């Protein structure tokens, strides 16, 4: 299965399992999937030291990972502020790790 398909399937699972409304994935600063991010947001997210959840009226979970020499940036967005609270975020991270495995195959 190609990369785009794997990521699309992952995004659909996220939307089904959690209250995720949108997902963006960038590979080496180029958009691979989902809606576009502005350059300031990309640089901000590339500077993060760890997975970060931004909460206001909604929330965003931002993380990044490497598969071989490629750097992936992933942003999951939700309209609800508590979508990525507590264990939910940990479940999502664990799913992302499975995705990394698939992308590496």
């Amino acid at each position, binding site marked *: 299965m190609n990369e785009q398909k794997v990521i699309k399937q992952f995004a659909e699972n996220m939307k089904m399992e959690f209250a995720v409304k949108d997902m963006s994935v960038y590979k080496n600063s180029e958009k691979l999937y989902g809606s576009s991010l502005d*350059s*300031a947001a990309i640089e*901000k997210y590339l500077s993060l030291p760890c997975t*970060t959840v931004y*909460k206001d009226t909604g929330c965003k979970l931002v993380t990044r990972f490497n598969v071989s020499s490629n750097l992936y940036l992933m942003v999951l967005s939700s309209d609800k502020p508590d979508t990525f609270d507590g264990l939910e975020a940990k479940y999502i991270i664990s799913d992302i790790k499975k995705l990394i495995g698939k992308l590496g195959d």
Partner: protein
Amino acid sequence: MNVVLLADKKFRKPFETAVKKDPNINLVGVEMVLRGNTMSRIADHHNPHALVVYKGVPEKEGITEKACISFLRMVKPNMRIIYVYGKVDDIEAFMAFSEQLISNGITDIVTDTAVENVIKVIDEPMTEEDVHTIIEKLNAPEEEIPHEELTHDVLMPGQEYEPLEVDFPTVTVSDKFEMDKIVYEVSETKESEHLTIGVAQLQHHNGCTHTAMELATMLSKNKTVAVIMADPDTYEALVVFHKINPMAAKQGLDVNGIAVFPYDLHSQIENEYSVIIYDYSYLREERRKSFDECDIKVMLSSAAEWDVAKVLNFIKFNDEKYIREINFLFPRVTQSKYLKYSKVFRKSGINTYRLLDSPDWTAPVEGNTAVYKHIIENYNIAKSGKPPKRKLLKIK
């Protein structure tokens, strides 16, 4: 007892005067800057019984206070080090720091800068227990904390930042990303009738006025905006460039649709526009209070090797909470170099953005507009009904 003072020059005179009155203390040397040879001067040349170190000694040639103390503990284990921490603003930072000192065998930690107290500690050494008593006192609840203030300072679980430790070695280290660690950044949208944005710069010629005008251009599309030039020379240069008599421009200008005023008028116009952008240029002490009072603070900083020390010192010598309220903008820097720096800043909760080359302020490039949108994203700015009725000299 032979004593050496290692402190910023402002502490020298009061310290010298005070030790003269104490027959037990013989001041054998004063070092006011930490540089490559300072440690050998202290250990080999002065060789004192005790070294008094005031927090915030100016550092040069990449030698840090921490490195100096560790080195001296190693080569001169019997030399007492008396550390003058000064007033404790951040208890957690103090606790972490004092633990470090204690683990280095240093228990003489003075928590104010009153020289009499420093002298007292030289004469009467402190113990680890004394330090813990200080911490206990600091942690004791204050009498009454207004509820509103408390809620602002309460952090969400996982919202803690690492202590501010931005120095030259750390900005060159690339940090590993921790996917399993989750940090929460909570923000709330604030309603603003009259938003004030302060734009200043830490070094000259970083494009402070240009940035203020770009911000004004972006915001003026659906808000009434005024730029106040806090530096009279900048305002006068703009007026003179357009061949206008400075006397005739005292009531303000309309520059390509942006209302621009001299600083003298700020109190008159601050309620007339939905956004006021203060262009402070190089941040001078007399404008510091005004900058601090702005709802949004923007600081342009150069990331050049010869300039970055100024940014690091500004961060180091200011309160952590205050530093986190400032948006540091770096112009003229490559993305790879910027990311190296911003990783360290963001780890400590400091907001940084990179500005792109944008030669025409009347049409800022998309990347800069994105930065400005991020900076104001937590504010819901009210739309002013009618534009202010001011007759401004028009410049096109």
